[in-house]
């Protein structure tokens, strides 16, 4: 693994990294952006807007009189101030943007103003943490001059920025008037809701469903359009659940950790320390990524890969594992459906009634295996199991997992092979040489990866968003699960395949239905959010006249910007956006409503991807201006419709959480929480096993109850077993002659999506957007750092400054995402370049996932 290993950084001599730097970025000419080396301090001072309120934090080093130098030696000491700012109380909050970490935050409050924040305590101090985003959010986003301060009605053209301040009463009247008109003229489904993940409280995430079901409207599903669904669609067919992961501390104990598309150092920076802990304890960390991400920079080995080909790499690894007989045949036979016979003609699993068939090599005959009944399977999101697995569900120890057999079922003769044979056959084509040619990873690296995975055990696979964001983004996870399955690594400590997990999605999936659908006898009509623009544009399958966005930077965080403006928005009579900040989506709305920040909400329950802690978020400061929570807004609408008292909206937010999130939760692990204790302590761990090991029971929520490495419902797509095909806009297709560059849009370590880009402290670190381009690609195009470039494809174009870097595999560019149109020259925006092409296999599994990295572009100097 010479490339990966030699990629590690040498420490440059001290003299070369000397802090004094008076001329900007080395020999690249004038600094594109102000640095904070001394010569440019003053230049930077004017960069970020000053927050509306600059809290006076403390008076450190102010006067010698104040010195209270406890314990310090006499003599020259002082001056010191007090240890903490002048505050009158500390309130615990939970920071919950879409970084999914849900850090507990202690907010120091003086006169109802947050003067500073610190990490709050968890029972396990490994989870005490905070980051620059959370700090900047509390001190600068809460107090941003861009806050939406009161309800505002558009008075000029859409997007003109001309607003009229109205009262909440007028706003609710207007909403009810518009909704009622639509109900009477187009039917209730003409009112629609699309919510997202800007606030990981339960209600903000569920508001769209709660509203749509209360008023029989349309709820746009959001998993696909958020771009997080690809990995889930590797899990669903095989394990029956959407996602799962071990506790992060489970990394301590892994000998090998292989990461596909994971850039925890930037995207989960509060969890990255677990990886360092593991590394310091001896884990070898291998990062597969087309970019030299900050995580790759910290890895023991970095494997650069052609974008969108991770599944092929794993197919190559599996080829090695099978060729070298480094598979776990007992596990395959007993715990997966690998022994189940597949009809050679139809490629469907052979069934005899409800039973599956296997070939018993001892008996030289078929044997039946019954599916596990549902009451014996874990009922996601619970992992608890009841009862014993009946013998009839066990695969005989003498069942074949390979071979071809002539069998007779119900009087019909057919040729069949165990399902695992299909895996052997499918990976046979992916020799290391073939995989190498696809992935642009060396044969030696592929062979070594397979060896490390099989021999340097326990070996863990981490997979995440980087693989999600291609049109074929479910394939890598499917391959990873198959690879873990055939090596017996599922349900095993320090091993497994890990994606998402914790309490975050679990709690959403288990909120009591009476809370999610607050009005008895009324229900939402769900439509796929990945198609929301097309369906609104075409007014199919029913008219959509109103859309209400909440919790969603919809103006920037989606595809097809031109279509949005030209074809979609004109079809909508009324657009409502609830948000903290007047962002690009809010600016295109007809009515904007001021949402409370995390610190202002009356009450919320918040969970995280990385752990099973449940946090109660109590109000820390009164709402700024006239801000209200999503829940309060929902209550006001219900009141106006005269239905509040007959629906679940009648409860206050805390009571709603008590009844539906905790006490009425579908999962016993959440029900076990004492709500009053949760309110008192503000952090309690749900009753999931500790340490938590996914699928420890080896019972799966699949039709058979086995880990289904063979999925006959996907035969028509050629995806009955792990497969590989090129991304939609592969850089090897014809289109690449015209648009040769793969356009990634990873976020920075300084932001969570669009939430933090315009905060002054963040602005000191990233004053403006840039696109990263490799030195080789920049040279070909005569582009230097700081040049404004035009980035374009057939769908659109935008302009941005270039940063020439060795961080990227040539052929890839990376626009750091989250910026708003106002940050780019001519208000242009990269979302115009992104497609939303449907993937039939994904639609068969669940719903196509938005694939923002899977777009080809060309760049030229503007």
């Amino acid at each position, binding site marked *: 693994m010479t490339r990966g290993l030699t990629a590690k950084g040498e420490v440059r001599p001290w003299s070369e990294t000397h*802090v004094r730097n008076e001329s900007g970025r080395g020999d690249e000419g004038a600094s594109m952006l102000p640095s904070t080396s001394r010569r440019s301090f003053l230049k930077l001072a004017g960069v970020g807007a000053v927050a509306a309120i600059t809290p006076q*934090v*403390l008076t450190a080093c102010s006067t010698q009189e104040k010195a209270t130098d*406890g314990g310090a030696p006499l003599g020259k000491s002082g001056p010191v101030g007090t240890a903490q700012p002048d505050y009158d109380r500390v309130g615990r909050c939970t920071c919950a943007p879409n970084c999914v970490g849900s850090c507990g935050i202690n907010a120091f409050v003086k006169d109802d103003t947050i003067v500073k924040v610190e990490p709050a305590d968890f029972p396990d101090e490994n989870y005490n943490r905070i980051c620059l985003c959370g700090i900047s959010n509390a001190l600068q986003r809460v107090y941003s001059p861009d806050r939406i301060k009161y309800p505002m009605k558009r008075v000029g053209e859409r997007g003109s920025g001309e607003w009229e301040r109205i009262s909440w009463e007028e706003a609710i009247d207007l909403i009810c008037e518009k909704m009622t008109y639509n109900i009477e003229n187009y039917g209730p489904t003409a009112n629609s809701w699309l919510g997202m993940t800007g606030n990981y409280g339960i209600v903000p995430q569920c508001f769209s469903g709660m509203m749509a079901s209360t008023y029989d409207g349309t709820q746009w599903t959001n998993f696909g359009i958020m771009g997080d669904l690809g990995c889930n669609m590797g899990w669903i067919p095989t394990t029956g659940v959407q996602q799962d992961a071990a506790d992060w501390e489970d990394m301590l104990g892994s000998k090998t950790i292989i990461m596909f598309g994971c850039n925890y*150092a930037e995207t989960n920076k509060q969890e990255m320390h677990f990886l*360092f802990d593991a590394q310091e304890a001896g884990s070898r960390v291998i990062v597969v990524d087309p970019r030299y991400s900050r995580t790759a920079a910290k890895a023991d080995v970095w494997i*650069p890969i052609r974008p969108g080909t991770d599944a092929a790499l794993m197919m190559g690894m599996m080829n090695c594992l099978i060729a070298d007989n480094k598979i776990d045949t007992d596990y395959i036979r007993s715990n997966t459906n690998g022994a189940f016979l597949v009809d050679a003609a139809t490629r469907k699993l052979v069934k005899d009634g409800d039973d599956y068939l296997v070939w018993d090599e001892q008996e030289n005959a078929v044997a039946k295996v019954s599916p596990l009944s549902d009451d014996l399977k874990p009922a996601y999101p619970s992992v608890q199991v009841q009862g014993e697995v009946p013998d009839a569900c066990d695969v005989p120890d003498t069942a074949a997992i390979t071979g071809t057999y002539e069998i007779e079922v119900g009087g019909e003769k057919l040729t069949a092979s165990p399902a695992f044979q299909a895996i052997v056959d499918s990976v046979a084509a992916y020799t290391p040489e073939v995989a190498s040619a696809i992935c642009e990873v060396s044969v030696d690296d592929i062979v070594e990866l397979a060896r490390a995975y099989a021999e340097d055990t326990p070996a863990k696979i981490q997979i995440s968003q980087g693989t999600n964001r291609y049109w074929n983004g479910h394939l890598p996870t499917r391959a990873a699960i198959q690879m873990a399955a055939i090596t017996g690594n599922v349900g095993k400590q320090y091993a497994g395949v890990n994606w998402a997990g914790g309490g975050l999605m679990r709690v959403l999936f288990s909120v009591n239905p009476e809370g999610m659908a607050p009005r008895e006898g009324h229900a939402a009509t769900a439509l796929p959010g990945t198609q929301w623009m097309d369906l609104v544009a075409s007014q199919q399958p029913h008219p959509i006249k109103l859309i209400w966005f909440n919790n969603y930077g919809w103006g920037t965080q989606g595809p097809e910007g031109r279509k949005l403006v030209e074809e979609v928005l004109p079809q909508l009579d009324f657009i409502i956006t609830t948000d903290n900040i007047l962002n690009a989506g809010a600016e295109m709305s007809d009515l904007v409503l001021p949402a409370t920040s995390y610190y202002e909400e009356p009450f919320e329950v918040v969970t995280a991807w990385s752990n099973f802690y449940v946090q109660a978020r109590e109000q820390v400061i009164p709402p700024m201006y006239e801000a209200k929570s999503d829940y309060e807004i929902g209550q006001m609408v219900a009141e106006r419709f005269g239905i509040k008292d007959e629906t679940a909206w009648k409860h206050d937010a805390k009571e709603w959480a008590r009844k539906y999130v905790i006490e009425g939760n579908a999962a016993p692990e959440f029900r076990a929480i004492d709500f009053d204790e949760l309110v008192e302590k503000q952090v309690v761990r749900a009753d999931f096993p500790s340490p938590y090991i996914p699928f420890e029971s080896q019972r799966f929520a699949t039709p058979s109850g086995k880990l289904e490495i063979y999925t006959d419902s996907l035969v028509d797509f050629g995806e009955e077993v792990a497969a590989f095909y090129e991304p939609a806009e592969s850089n090897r297709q014809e289109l690449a002659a015209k648009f040769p560059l793969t356009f990634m849009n990873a976020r920075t*370590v300084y932001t969570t999506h669009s939430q933090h880009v315009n905060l002054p*402290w963040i602005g000191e670190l990233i004053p403006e957007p840039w696109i990263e381009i490799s030195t080789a690609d920049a040279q070909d195009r005569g582009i230097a750092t700081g040049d404004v470039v035009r980035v374009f494809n057939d769908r659109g174009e935008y302009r941005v400054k270039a940063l020439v870097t060795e961080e990227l595999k040539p052929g890839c560019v990376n626009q750091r995402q989250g910026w708003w149109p106002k940050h780019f020259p001519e208000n242009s925006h990269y979302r115009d370049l992104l497609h939303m092409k449907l993937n039939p296999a994904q639609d068969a599994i669940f719903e196509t996932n938005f694939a923002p990295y899977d777009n080809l572009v060309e760049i030229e100097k503007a």
Partner: protein
Amino acid sequence: MTKYAFAINLHRCVGCRTCTVSCKMENTVADGLQRIRVLNDAGETTLDAPAGVYPNVSFLWRPVPCQHCDEPPCIDPCPVEATWKRDDGVVVVDKELCIGCDSCIKMCPYDARFLDETAGVVDKCDLCIHRLSNGEEKTMCELCCPNRAITVGDLDDPESAISKIIAENNVERYDEEAGTQPNVYYWWSVKKA
């Protein structure tokens, strides 16, 4: 005696600048100024790019606070004696006395001092001495670093975490040839391959 110093684990630093921002919050550092800067390979705090040529590249981030030198070159030049080294090792500026000239600033080999023009005084890292002297265990940057890269402690206490780090690891000090005897010890918890 107490002798405060920093140990900073560069393997754990991912360049997120939470130290910078948490310090700005804690110490009301003026807009555009940073008491602890995280320098990249180019010696800058923005636009991080790796050194080397793809794919043989490396990233380095180095948090640079005041080095609280044993031989601080910034003290003698002060015309009004507004800056000194405390007995616990912390180099401080008394802003009541400081007249905002640049005498000390230009003597610092680490660019750790800067002029807060609005306040008309020199600003710098004071190792959150207001915290450490008042019962808080950690400086703000140490408390907030998500990756636990920063350790502040007492070199005179052989049992302190920082003393153990220095005893058990190869540590380096920044620009040591300047003769200033800096008290920020950089180390790597995972050795480079």
